[in-house]
């Protein structure tokens, strides 16, 4: 029995030793450089990070990230995350940056550094086409069920609006918001314009949904989220973004993905 206990304790200790073998005193950028990989936290949505018909990851952010990483001399490694856990993921080093159309806000600013904002965006309301006559403006949405992604700028916009916040339920991801509307479990969804413009309407998977043009919610900006103690990576990413602005390649990317009207460096 003693031998068995000893074996068990040894096994338990080796688990902890294994988990702890890479503790170090390096700076954050040195840690990333040594890995040679920048682990990028993303969720899949068009037009930012999504799979094309050949099942290859593509999109505005995918190409943007790859271009910046090339300038930094590291390989990007895209990792799907639960958007609710993004701060967790960043601080526990399970990812190195959040780069997925992340909207800057005060709460996030306490947890991380931001790159130069590269997109000016806004929140819009999405509904079923069948409801087009029913919901023409904010006032007509009184009492209707509303959803937005938990922790997103859309949620903040809903909570700051006295009409929309009356019958509000959160969702895990922006894509789930669209599914709620499509399946009819919620009537109004609040997501950002970039995503709505790319994934709703004619020729998309959500052709039976539409944006309510007359409803305009908070303006906002997209930036890359970087670990709080890593000013070095921040300045490197900013320099790379500036290079892409100067040589016009970022603008070209925006054009490719139909994002020119939200391009931040006009």
């Amino acid at each position, binding site marked *: 029995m003693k031998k068995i206990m000893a074996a068990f304790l040894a096994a338990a200790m080796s688990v902890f030793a294994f988990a702890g073998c890479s503790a170090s005193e390096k700076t954050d950028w040195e840690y990333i450089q040594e890995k040679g990989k920048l682990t990028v936290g993303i969720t899949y949505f068009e037009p930012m990070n999504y799979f094309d018909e050949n099942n290859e990851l593509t999109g505005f952010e995918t190409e943007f990230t790859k271009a910046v990483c090339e300038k930094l001399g590291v390989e990007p490694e895209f990792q799907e995350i639960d958007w609710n856990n993004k701060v967790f993921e960043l*601080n526990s080093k399970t990812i190195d940056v959040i780069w997925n159309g992340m909207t800057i806000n005060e709460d996030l600013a306490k947890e991380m550094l931001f790159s130069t904002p590269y997109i000016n965006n806004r929140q819009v309301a999405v509904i079923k086409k069948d409801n087009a006559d029913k919901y023409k403006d904010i006032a007509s949405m009184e009492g209707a069920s509303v959803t937005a992604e938990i922790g997103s700028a859309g949620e903040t916009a809903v909570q700051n609006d006295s009409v929309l916040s009356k019958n509000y339920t959160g969702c895990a991801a922006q894509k789930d918001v669209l599914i709620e509307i499509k399946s009819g479990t919620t009537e109004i969804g609040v997501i950002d314009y970039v995503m709505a413009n790319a994934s709703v309407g004619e020729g998309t998977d959500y052709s039976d949904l539409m944006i309510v043009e007359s409803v305009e919610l908070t303006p906002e900006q997209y930036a890359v989220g970087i670990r709080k103690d890593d000013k070095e990576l921040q300045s490197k990413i900013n320099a790379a973004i500036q290079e892409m602005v100067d040589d016009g390649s970022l603008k070209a990317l925006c054009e490719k993905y139909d994002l020119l009207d939200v391009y931040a460096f006009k």
Partner: protein
Amino acid sequence: MSFLEVTAQLANGFLTTLLIFGVTLVCALPLGLLITFGSMSKIPPIKWIMRTFIWIIRGTPLMLQIIIVFYGPGLLFGWSALPRLMAVLIAFVINYACYFSEIYRGGIESIPKGQYEAGQVLGMTKSQIFFKIVLFQVIKRIVPPMGNEIITLVKDTSLARVIMVVELVQAAQQIVAQKALLWPMFYIGAFYLLFSGLLTVILNRVEKKLNYYSG
């Protein structure tokens, strides 16, 4: 996406589900026995440490344990992260070992004292009595409750998606999210039903095989 493409993508997720299921079972079965020995130990400190450990593991959600194993090392000590699947496996093995250990303990304590006494009369050592007489009767008795836990494990594997391990439910969720197809979410029910059905058949067979005392 066609039915075949969806099936192929789901089958990929199902492989991860099977991997979590298989590794958990293979590692937690023996680890559970060790924990049982600890929780039934005659040395009070070992016994109480083990029982507290079992209380903590059984008393908190597996989902929380997965989150702690994965994010904990980085947040608390600044270590670099475990691979996602590894974190899931560690949390599952420890959690299931604790549940198994209580089933083992129930089985061991249900064996009448007379069996031990008979062994002693025959001059067997303590470990001989345990491994040659008691253990086989225990195995026979714990098959139904173990079957329960094993089938629960099949469905619990879906918790791995909290840290974005792409198992069956997450694979379906990705299709739902990206292609706006709703039916794959219902389709995966068939995967789970078939697999747990297969396990039920196997467990019934095992039970029959072990039914050697009733003539």
